[in-house]
């Protein structure tokens, strides 16, 4: 149990640290908690929107023209999610390799160093890929066919 004095001190201190106040400061810290963004569906990611549209067009050749729109767009989104996971894996290793590897090391060894430092994070990404693969399978199975 905290004492009354400690509680008062905590309240006083909390008033001092309320995060950034300026627009620039807020903009700078906006993505502090963002790790890889893979929990956000591709549909909500503006950067992935074009790719979703492109894959939807590709899926259009399979559809019947009746009731397929949702299934095709959801399958395309799942496919983009799968691609995002694979891209994220490569980006994590590349970033770590640049941080840890010295220029006199061959590129493959730099990548190996980066990879060794990130295996835990990479293993954690597996579930995102599994989930997206399963979603894509579901949507493609129920999509009406020509």
């Amino acid at each position, binding site marked *: 149990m905290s004492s009354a004095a400690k509680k008062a001190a905590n309240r006083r201190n909390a008033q001092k640290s309320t995060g950034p106040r300026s627009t620039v400061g807020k903009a700078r810290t906006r993505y502090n908690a963002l790790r890889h963004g893979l929990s956000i569906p591709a549909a909500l990611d503006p950067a992935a929107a074009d*790719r979703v549209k*492109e*894959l939807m*067009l*590709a*899926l259009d*050749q*399979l559809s019947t023209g009746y009731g397929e729109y949702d299934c095709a767009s959801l399958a395309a989104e799942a*496919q983009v999610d*799968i*691609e995002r996971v*694979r*891209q994220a*894996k*490569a980006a994590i*290793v*590349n970033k770590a*390799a*640049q941080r840890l590897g010295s220029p*006199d*090391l*061959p*590129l*493959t*060894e*730099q*990548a*190996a*160093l*980066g*990879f*060794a*430092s990130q*295996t*835990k994070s*990479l*293993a954690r990404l*597996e579930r995102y*890929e599994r989930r997206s*693969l399963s979603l*894509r*399978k579901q949507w*493609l199975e129920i999509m009406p*066919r020509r």
Partner: protein
Amino acid sequence: MLGKHLTETCSRVFAKPAIMLGEDPADYEAMRDLVLADIDQDDVQECFLARDILDSEWELLRLRGMKPGMLHAAITRAVNAMMAEESELQPLEREWVSPLRRHLVGALAGNAHERKQLEELLSKHHLSFQLVIGAAFEATLRPQVDTDRMIGAALDRRRAAYRELNAYRERKEERARWETEMRPVPAAKSARGNAPTVASNMAAGNGHAGEA
């Protein structure tokens, strides 16, 4: 053979490969061509599955390469750490790092001459080949175990993609067979002389007449 439309579709599906540092995009493309030639996909869903197979294969190769790669990269650090433990030993001189790695890669590839030179180099620091490999392996034990798990996951993904592809093709064949059986016979051959229907088709003995 792929049609023009399907080639475009396929190239859309296969865009944006995930390439890591030290990997060659040309190798990925060469592997893609091999996988596509083997699978001979004929619609976009098969393209998706072909891409899954390709990416799993690529990841398997990558992970299997990472295992010795991690060991190689950890050697010099392991040597330095071992020297730091022994207070009377000097840390590894920078100019020795490159020959050490060169001899090591040669020795691990089975070159006896390189191994002898490596042993000589290490003996100057009161170390041995086995000791250094052991220390490097110990330093990368956790990542090695994680990598094995990731290899298992990639193998599962590849197996699942092949299974899904086979099931999809079987369903497609079954649908095509069913459509052929249910196709109306031409009017001249119709038993009743009326416009052909599924019912008249069945009555004529095509399709599932026994069930009608």
